Structures are given as structure tokens and as C-alpha cells.
């Protein structure tokens, strides 16, 4: 007999994780199913990590209202979940009087939306707020409520909190079919696993259209807008004190300079509509585009500081708004689609919004008396003083073993990651930052692999970068016949 749940959330990105955590405060049996081997491995892992300031869209859009509400919720969320988050503020830099007029429109949006503290700035004030800006700046806008977050860490924390409060997580669960019979959905995975559920929430990101189709709900198309970004070294002089936006164009917020919470600088993203949802490749043309655009904002941005580049995908719908509604074709099936920017910002508000839809449609919500919104804080070596480190090592000697020397990640943090279920190399990277620094794993990859083997009992051959066929090594000396070639 398959396991039966009250609610199934499809997709463990920031939307799915936020919804699951929200539902975990009620007496419900909830499961999250995810096709990848870990959470946050889709849209949520590769984006700019901006907590938006509430001025890019006007109040008529659903996403605009959820962005403002979501932004406000972040302070409490950080208190409870300890993910890296900083309200560093956002500036939008204008370089002509034409651009200034667009900025004034953004300001109007912000005022109408209720963005706190938003202001128009002249040349001097812009340079005061961000001294690294191009001196040609004419003026611009400042949104002090905007900020930055480590997106995958947010998702990991949301999911950890949800699991702590009883939510189950099934990874590598790629939905093959979903059929409704006697008020129960039967959901089958490609590998043959089955579950049953009264409610289904479609938070499948890029694949919401396919999931909707599988369940026989609405037909629509997710258009994928691809974005390439570059990450610069921690020592890069380009590190600004605020997020720097250009004046947006019709289809995109433009390419920005982002000072990440962990001290690296990110530049990008591009915005290209593509057909293939799995085309994560980077190109030389976009590399040039990004750097010339970033240098227009912040002239000290240098290609010499690149540590890596990556590609992210944004799931968009016609009309460009979020689509969060009860299905009109299938009972108790909720569409949460088109969650592109500002989806990260809006995610806690989306969770509330979805919960309210469910309540309005007959789901009985009884608060759990033992719900605990807090998760344990894993001490981070890099954020600790010498005295704290001394104490940490005394309590747990694994804090004395540096594994990733670029980011100062200790064995204790790697072990915590593995025990929390993040045991692929990318999962460990996103949880701890190991392999994310300037050597990109040149020194520590084999050390991490050994710890994974020891902690999980797997063999080296079982370790992957991010699941599937992304194996690292699969042969040892003696497995091949030598000398067959020359």
C-alpha cells in the first residue's frame, strides 16, 4: 500500500521548500518530491541571490505584492534559520537624463508598492552611497530595504526546518504520472515508487508545464530565460557595498554587480530565451557582454578576478507574472508557476498565499502545538574568533581539520552537511562553501570524497558531483589493461 499524504509538494526549490515549511506548522502529513538528488538543485541554485527592493514592478502585478511582503518576512526568517542574509541596500545607476526618467518611474512604483525608505539620488549621493560607481553616473535610486542572500542556503534551511517539523522529502523522485481517483491522487515516480495524496502543489519550476500536463490540469508553456553569471575572487577590488543595478530594459532587470554575503563579487546575468531547458552552457559572447556592462557600472570590475561562471534558468510565463491559483480543471491541485525574479524574495509570501488558497478551498488547518520554527545553528569556522575556534576544537576536534583552505571549511562542517543529507559534491559545496573558492576544489576534492565514504559507507565510485551520471572516478589502478594503445 503506498504511503498516503495530505499534501504533496512537487519540487524542492525555494518555492516548494517555503510552502512545505509553512505547512509544517499545521497538523498535516506533507511530502516534498524532487527529481534531483538534493534540494535547491534547479532554478534556486543559480541566480543572483537578490532580495529585491520592491520598485521594479507596479502594484497591479501579483509578484509585486508578494515581493514587498516577502522582503519584510526575511528578518524573522533569518533569525529562525541562520542563512546568510544582509540588507546591504540596492542602488540603480542612471547615466543619462533618459535613464533618469525610467528611474523616476521605478521610484513611483516603489512608493506605490510601499517600499520602505526608497529615495531618488543625485550624482553626489550616488557616489556617497557606492564610491566604486562609475563617476559618469547622473543620478539614480536607492532602496535601503534590498539585500542579498545565499539562495541555496535559504532553501536548505527552509527544508531542514520543514523536515524537523515532520515533512518528508523524497529525492530522485521524478514524477511520471498523477491520477485522481476517489479523492486521492496517486503519484508515480519514474523509478516505480508510488505515493498517494489529497492535495498536490505544483512548484516544479522549469517543469511546471509538464507536471500540469501529467496531472491533466491547465495547459500552458514555461518559457526559459537563461542567465550567465561570473563569480569573482574574494580579494577582487570590485566588491561593492551595495547591489548595483543598471536601469532596466523592457525584458530584464539588466546585468548587475552583486557583493555576495560571503564576500565574493558576482556579475551578470544575461537574459536569453532558450528552447532547451537543460542548456546550462556558457559562451564567450556573453562573457564579453557581461564584463563590458559591469564595467560601465563599476569600472574596477576585472576579468583577472574570475573564479568561475555559471548559468541559471528563469521559468517565465506569458504576461510575466506569477501564476498561483487553484486549478480549474483538477480538484485540490494548486499551480505555483512562473516563479521567476523576484521569486526568491517573494518565496515566504508565496507560502502564505498558497496556504490561504488551500484554507479558502476547504483544507482544515490546525496549528501544531509543538511546531518549532528554529533550526540549530552550525558554527562556521570562518565566522569564529580565535578564542571561539579554540573552544570549538576542544569540543569537536573535527573543527581543527581544515578541508577547504580557500574558504576555510572544516571537517566538522562537511560532516554536518552529509548528516543533513547533502552528500553530493555540489550539495556539500552549497551547504558549506567547500570547493567554491579560488582553487575550485583542486586541493580538497579528494579529502571531501574520503569523508563522504567514511560517513555514508559508500565507495568512491558512488560519489557524484550532482547525482545522475556525474560520477567523479569510476576506475582504479589495475582495472584497465595497459599498453593496448601504443
Amino acid at each position: 500500500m503506498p504511503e498516503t499524504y495530505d499534501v504533496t509538494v512537487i519540487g524542492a526549490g525555494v518555492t516548494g521548500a517555503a510552502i512545505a515549511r509553512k505547512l509544517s506548522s499545521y497538523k498535516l502529513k506533507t511530502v516534498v518530491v524532487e527529481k534531483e538528488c538534493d534540494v535547491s538543485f534547479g532554478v534556486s541554485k543559480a541566480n543572483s541571490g537578490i532580495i529585491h527592493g520592491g520598485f521594479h514592478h507596479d502594484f497591479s502585478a501579483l509578484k509585486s505584492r508578494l515581493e514587498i511582503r516577502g522582503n519584510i518576512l526575511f528578518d524573522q526568517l533569518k533569525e529562525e534559520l541562520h542563512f546568510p542574509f544582509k540588507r546591504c541596500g540596492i542602488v540603480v545607476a542612471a547615466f543619462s537624463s533618459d535613464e533618469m526618467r525610467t528611474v523616476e518611474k521605478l521610484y513611483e512604483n516603489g512608493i506605490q508598492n510601499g517600499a520602505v525608505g526608497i529615495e531618488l539620488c543625485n550624482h553626489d549621493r550616488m557616489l556617497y552611497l557606492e564610491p566604486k560607481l562609475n563617476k559618469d553616473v547622473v543620478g539614480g535610486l536607492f532602496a535601503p530595504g534590498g539585500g542579498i542572500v545565499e539562495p541555496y542556503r535559504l532553501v536548505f534551511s527552509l527544508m531542514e526546518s520543514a523536515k524537523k517539523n515532520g515533512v518528508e522529502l523524497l529525492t530522485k523522485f521524478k514524477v511520471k504520472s498523477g491520477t485522481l481517483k476517489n479523492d486521492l491522487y496517486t503519484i508515480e515516480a519514474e523509478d516505480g515508487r508510488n505515493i498517494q495524496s489529497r492535495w498536490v502543489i505544483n512548484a516544479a519550476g522549469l517543469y511546471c508545464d509538464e507536471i500540469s500536463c501529467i496531472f491533466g490540469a491547465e495547459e500552458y508553456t514555461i518559457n526559459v530565460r537563461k542567465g550567465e553569471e561570473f563569480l569573482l575572487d574574494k580579494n577582487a577590488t570590485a566588491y561593492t557595498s551595495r547591489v548595483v543595478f543598471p536601469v532596466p530594459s523592457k525584458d530584464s532587470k539588466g546585468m548587475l554587480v552583486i557583493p555576495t554575503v560571503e564576500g565574493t563579487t558576482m556579475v551578470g546575468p544575461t537574459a536569453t530565451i532558450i528552447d532547451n531547458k537543460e542548456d546550462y552552457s556558457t559562451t564567450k559572447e556573453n562573457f564579453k557582454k557581461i564584463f563590458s556592462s559591469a564595467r560601465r557600472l563599476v569600472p574596477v570590475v576585472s576579468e583577472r578576478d574570475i573564479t568561475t561562471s555559471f548559468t541559471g534558468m528563469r521559468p517565465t510565463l506569458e504576461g510575466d507574472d506569477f501564476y498561483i491559483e487553484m486549478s480549474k480543471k483538477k480538484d485540490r491541485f494548486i499551480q505555483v508557476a512562473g516563479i521567476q525574479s523576484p521569486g526568491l524574495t517573494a518565496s515566504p509570501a508565496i507560502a502564505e498565499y498558497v496556504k490561504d488558497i488551500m484554507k479558502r478551498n476547504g483544507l482544515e488547518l490546525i496549528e501544531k502545538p509543538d511546531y518549532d520554527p528554529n533550526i540549530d545553528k552550525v558554527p562556521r569556522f570562518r565566522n569564529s574568533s580565535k578564542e571561539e575556534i579554540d573552544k570549538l576544537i576542544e569540543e569537536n576536534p573535527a573543527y581543527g581539520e581544515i578541508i577547504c583552505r580557500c574558504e576555510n571549511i572544516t571537517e566538522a562542517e562537511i560532516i554536518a552537511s552529509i548528516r543533513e543529507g547533502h552528500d553530493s559534491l555540489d550539495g556539500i559545496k552549497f551547504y558549506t562553501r567547500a570547493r567554491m573558492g579560488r582553487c575550485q576544489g583542486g586541493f580538497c576534492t579528494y579529502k571531501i570524497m574520503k569523508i563522504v565514504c567514511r560517513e555514508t559507507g559508500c565507495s568512491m565510485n558512488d560519489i557524484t558531483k550532482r547525482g545522475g551520471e556525474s560520477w567523479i572516478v569510476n576506475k582504479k589502478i589495475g582495472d584497465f589493461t595497459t599498453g593496448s594503445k601504443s
Partner: protein
Amino acid sequence: MKKIEREVLIIGGGSAGMAAAAEIAEKGHSVVIVERESTMGGILNQCIHNGFGLHRFKEELTGPEYAERYVNIINELPIDQYTGMTVTEIDDQKDFKLVYAFSSHEGMVEFKVKAVVLAMGCRERNRGNIGTPGSRPSGVFTAGLAQRLVNIDGLIPGKKCVIVGSGDIGLIMARRLSWVGADVQAVVEIQPYPAGLTRNIVQCLNDFNIPLHLSHIVSKIYGKDRVEGVDITPLIDGIEAPVQTFHIDCDTLLLSVGLVPDNEVSKKAGVIISNQTSGPAVDGNLMTNVEGIFACGNVLHVHDLVDFVTEESIRCGSYVNSYLEGKTKGSQYSVMAGANVRYITPNKFTSDSDNKFYLRSMIVKNQAELVVSLDGREIIRKKQKHVQPSEMISCEIKADLLKSTGLNEKSRLEIGLKS
């Protein structure tokens, strides 16, 4: 927090750190080596091929043998060795330095020392540094990581490999992979000449009929989960010629695209880094701009042979001894790279003692000439049978050549290569 007082602390127990430590301990000074790995020897331990030690020991050794010779030397001397210990910070208090380091056994330790020797070595450049476009699958390794996996852990990174860069580690790995039964499809080098030593081209590529594509780049990486292939594009007069692009199927890509001195701890201590070498700018005593902090080995500049690392580090040790004894050689004057020289180190010289410089050529040439001039006046001209960027050139200038030359604070020594 544990507190330990010594005269000298050496960061790094590889070939540089061990040689400097031995020199210092032999003169009776108290010295401690802090090494982050569990054994001394550094990267030599994974360089199991031979070719080390011809200068230093007058015989051909493998990396582990070379390391072990030095481990035996330092074990015979009163040198404190801390392994598994990482230095986090050097706090310069002028008369002394406080060095903070930690390990799982000792917790955080505060070392109070008079001098610090930076000997942390270098790290490999990676895909981000060369900006190779394409997808981001598993199976892209730096050559050094692959070397570690094969030689110490016995693991083979893949069956069909392409190697980017003809640096020595890349060439050595081409032979190693062939010898463990993997297929090396090609080595791709962006420059029109090989980046590694000639003997490695012969013994690691030609012996195995591995094609070396000079003036070519890997222009795209394919593969969703694991590498599935690469596009290779020739450069014609330095510009990509996309029409001549060809494809190779492979499951592994090794990168041997250069080494960079690893100076994060140095930078935090206020040490100025040279743009040319990516290592500290040092004077003729191998001392950085921070008094009492010295540097030697690959953290200073990337060497081609370990023998030269040892030579430089022994000298560094002797300069530290002079410093501790208050006999540091006096006035320091500027040194500049001249024509066709990519970098020269050290960046200062003194007229009180002999000077030794290491430099790298920007050109490939037989019968070149090394020209040393002081304030525009030629003082040495020396034939060089053959110069190429991959082979370091050494140059010694005796003190008496410099003594009676009326040096002033604007004096400048220039070393160049005449083509």
C-alpha cells in the same frame, strides 16, 4: 589558547620550508615548521616520477625520494614540526610576530617569533581562470588533483582524456594516465611552443603517440552530467579560427594551465604582492616589505625544478640567520626586468654581498645573450645557449662588480635578454 615562543616560524613543510628550516637550525636558532597536511614533503609526495635532485643531490630521484631525503635531514636537527596545522594569521608587532595556527590536536596556538618564512607553495589555475565556455559537467580536473587521485589513492579519473595545457604536470599526467591504461586523446596548448620541458614532451607524449596541438584552445565543453567531449579550435595569428574547429569525444578533461603562488596569509599580513610573479615583492635578502617576514620557493615565484627551490630556500634560511644575528646586509637598490624578460626576482639588490636572481624569458631562442646593466651601463654580458619561457634562468652578480660603481638611491639594475 596554547602559547609557544621560538625565533622563527616557517609556514609550509614542503621542499622550501624544510630547506630553510634546516639552514636556520644548523646555525643554532630555534625554529618551528607548521605544515597543514599530515606529512612533510608537500606536493613532492604525489610527484612519483623521476627527474628531481640532479643539482642538489647529483642523482636522479623521484619526488617522494627527494622529500624523504629532506625529512631525514630535518629529523636529525632540533626542529619542531607541527603537521595537520593551518596558519590563519600573522600579526606583525614590529619587534616580534604573533602567528596564529590551529590543529585538531592542539586547538588554536599562538606562536611568538622574531621572523616568519613564507613557504606555502602554489596552487593550480582552473577552468574559471581560463574561462572555457560550455556546459559544467563532472570530469573537469586540474592536473594536480588528478595526479593526487592516481598516485596516492590509486583512482583513475576517466577512460578517455584530453589535457589542456602542456605544462609539466599535464605532460607527466599524460604518461601516467597512459601507464594506468587510460587513453590520452590529445594535449592542447594555447601557445605556439610547449609550456613544459622538452624531455617531458619526448618521454610523456611522443613515446605514446599523443598529439600535441600547439596554438589551439578547447573552445567548448560538452556533457550534461559528465564530460562527453570537447571542441578544439586553432588560433591563427592569435585569433580563433572557428571554421577549423574539430571535436574529440572524451569523458575527462585535465587542466594544466599554470600555477599561482598561494599568498592569502601573506596578503592578510600586509605583504605586498608583485604583479609579475603573483608572489611577494622581496629585497636581496628575500625579505618582504614587512620586516621579519621572508619568502622562498613557489610561494615567491613558480620554479621549474625543485632543486632551485631548495637552493633559494637555503639562501633564504641564511638571510634569516643574518637577520636574527643583526647582520642583515645594508642598502637595497632596485632591480627591473629588461627586454624579453617576463619577471625577475628578487626585486632589490645589495652591493654588500653577492646577488642571485631568477628570471623567466618571454622568448624562445638559441644563442641568446643575457645583458645586465646598471644605471644604463652594461656590466655583464653572458651567452645563453637556449632560452624558453618554461625554463628558469639564474644569474649571479658578484658584489665587487657593484661596489665601486657610485650607487645612489635611484640606482637601477636591469637584466634583459638580447634576441
